[in-house]
């Protein structure tokens, strides 16, 4: 049946659609800022954990490779903090439909039928369930885990930061940073948690990208475009 449908569309038979706003500009900006920061932070992070690049040898004391890597890591780290905080604010208090729909997704999350159908859909057994919100339950869980990881990375990152820069912001956050340090059982553990959270985030992101492509190919409603343009196509009923 599905192949027939597909063919029909291919042959240009009309399916009535309407353009709807899926993601607001703010949503899209913070999404891509986060994507960029993750790439840069992962690269510089791996270097910080194990410096795998030799600086060009130079007899003068003008070499700052590691310090520069850390500086980039921190600059993008703070960019990520900004993006995550803005997104958290928007999700909790944002006025646009997108953010309200994020909350509505919780209704799907607690509905076991949706869970079964969603799993069935991904296992090629059943149709995609009709959703009330923007995210299906699996998606919701994945994004939720992602935010836990973001905050873990941010908190552990800040704890590491206050020990590198003791003045200014580092000084202001020192007290709370050390409180978290005790909670995590020392700086070595803080580093470990930072490192492991990165791995967990990377794995979720790989799955996330695959699922986005999968839905773009088979969903045919432009939801992949939406993260670029903001719009997607919904079938008119």
């Amino acid at each position, binding site marked *: *049946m*599905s*192949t027939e*449908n*597909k063919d029909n569309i291919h042959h240009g038979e009309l399916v009535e659609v309407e353009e709807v706003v899926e993601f607001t500009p703010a949503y899209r900006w913070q999404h891509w800022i986060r994507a960029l920061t993750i790439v840069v932070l992962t690269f510089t992070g791996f270097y910080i*954990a*194990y*410096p795998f*690049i*030799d*600086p060009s040898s130079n007899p003068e*004391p003008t*070499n*700052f*490779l*590691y*310090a520069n*890597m850390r500086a980039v890591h921190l600059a993008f780290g703070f960019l990520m903090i900004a993006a995550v905080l803005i997104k958290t604010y928007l999700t909790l208090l944002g006025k646009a439909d997108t953010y309200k729909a994020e909350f509505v997704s919780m209704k799907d999350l607690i509905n076991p039928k949706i869970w079964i159908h969603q799993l069935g*859909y*991904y296992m*090629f*057994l*059943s*149709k*995609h369930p009709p959703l009330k919100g923007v995210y299906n339950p699996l998606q919701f869980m994945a994004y939720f885990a992602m935010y836990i990881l973001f905050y873990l990375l941010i908190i552990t990152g800040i704890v590491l930061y206050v*020990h590198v820069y003791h003045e200014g912001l580092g000084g202001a956050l020192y007290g709370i940073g*050390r*409180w978290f*340090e*005790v909670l995590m*059982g*020392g*700086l*070595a*553990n803080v*580093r*470990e948690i930072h*490192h*492991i959270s990165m*791995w967990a985030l*990377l*794995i979720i992101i*790989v*799955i996330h990208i*695959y699922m986005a492509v*999968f839905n773009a*190919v*088979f969903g045919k409603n432009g939801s992949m475009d939406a993260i670029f343009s903001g719009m997607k196509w919904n079938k008119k009923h």
Partner: protein
Amino acid sequence: MKVSTKETTYDSLYATFEERIEKLKKLPKMKEDTSIEQAIEENGFSRREFMKWAGAMTAMLSLPASFTPLMAEAVKVADRLPIIWLHMAECTGCTESLLRSANPSIDSLIFDYISLEYQETIMTAVGWQAEQNLENAIKKYKGRYILMVEGGIPNGDTEYNLTVGPHGKSGKKISQDASKDAAAIFAIGTCSAFGGVQAAAPNPTNAVALSEVTDRPVINVPGCPPSEKNIVGTLMHYLLYGTLPALDVFNRPKWAYRLRIHDLCERRGRFDAGEFVENFGDEGAKDGYCLYKVGCKGPYTFNNCGKQKFNQGTSWPIQAGFGCIGCSEPNFWDTMGTVNEPLRDRLYHTTLGGLGADATADRIGIALLTVTTVGIAAHAAIAAVKPPKK
């Protein structure tokens, strides 16, 4: 401290110290026949050397140089403070580090000389007599003695793993009894401060820190062993102030444990430059490159080794070309990973029922990522032949 008030605050501090020293002077000397001055002189230290030591100690406690004569005075009354030193589950390394240097330093002399009312390693009493000495000291100097404890304390249903003396008292009971009436309690060494080596996984004796078995405030002086400077400095601080020092988040005196090894390291410039020793003995090692990639744990460790050094200021591990192993941090045997390997290569031993034994976070990460990718490829392959239901 604000610059404008510095003069006056130091003046009043000076007066307080003077007062305290006068008060201590009035207390009876523990040893009648000799004095610390005499002992220092007899061991071949000149007055000049002694004043130099006092100056260094003053600086270490972040006091201005004008306090040096006061420090020298304070040392002289150090024998007025009775000290009880307990050995729990430990290797006696902390005691040894203090007492057995080839050329006794002034620090170790002071330690030798202060009134150690009870110290199992150096006392002659044994058995019932030793037990009685301890009980008597606690009674006689009630509320006045300083308690120093070395070693972790077996706890829970394995408390009996440390049972000492003819009464068969457990280490936990002994340290609790001694803590009750102490004027100040110092946990000397990482074992007593955080549990140390016997508390490392799987911790068969359920060893814990001293602070876990008493509700009295405990000052942690960790290190494996702590430097003689940090032990004697803690004592001198108490002698001068009569109060407990400012502490960091793990109850370590701030004057010694405020900064990381990494913050005080002479190789830090190499670190920031990205210049690392790759193998012990390579060209970089000869040029004094940073030891991060050969396992230095200085970035995660709070201590003042780089400033105070060891063996009368001769050297310290990183100066000698060997990375810090993180000895003054809680649970460092477990959290710091393998000696000589960076933290990135920490192994997960007992995690996942032993599967973590030779797995690092990166290896586990790559394995999971591979599984994920294989799963994705399989799913995509199925989707290509059998698209999802519309």
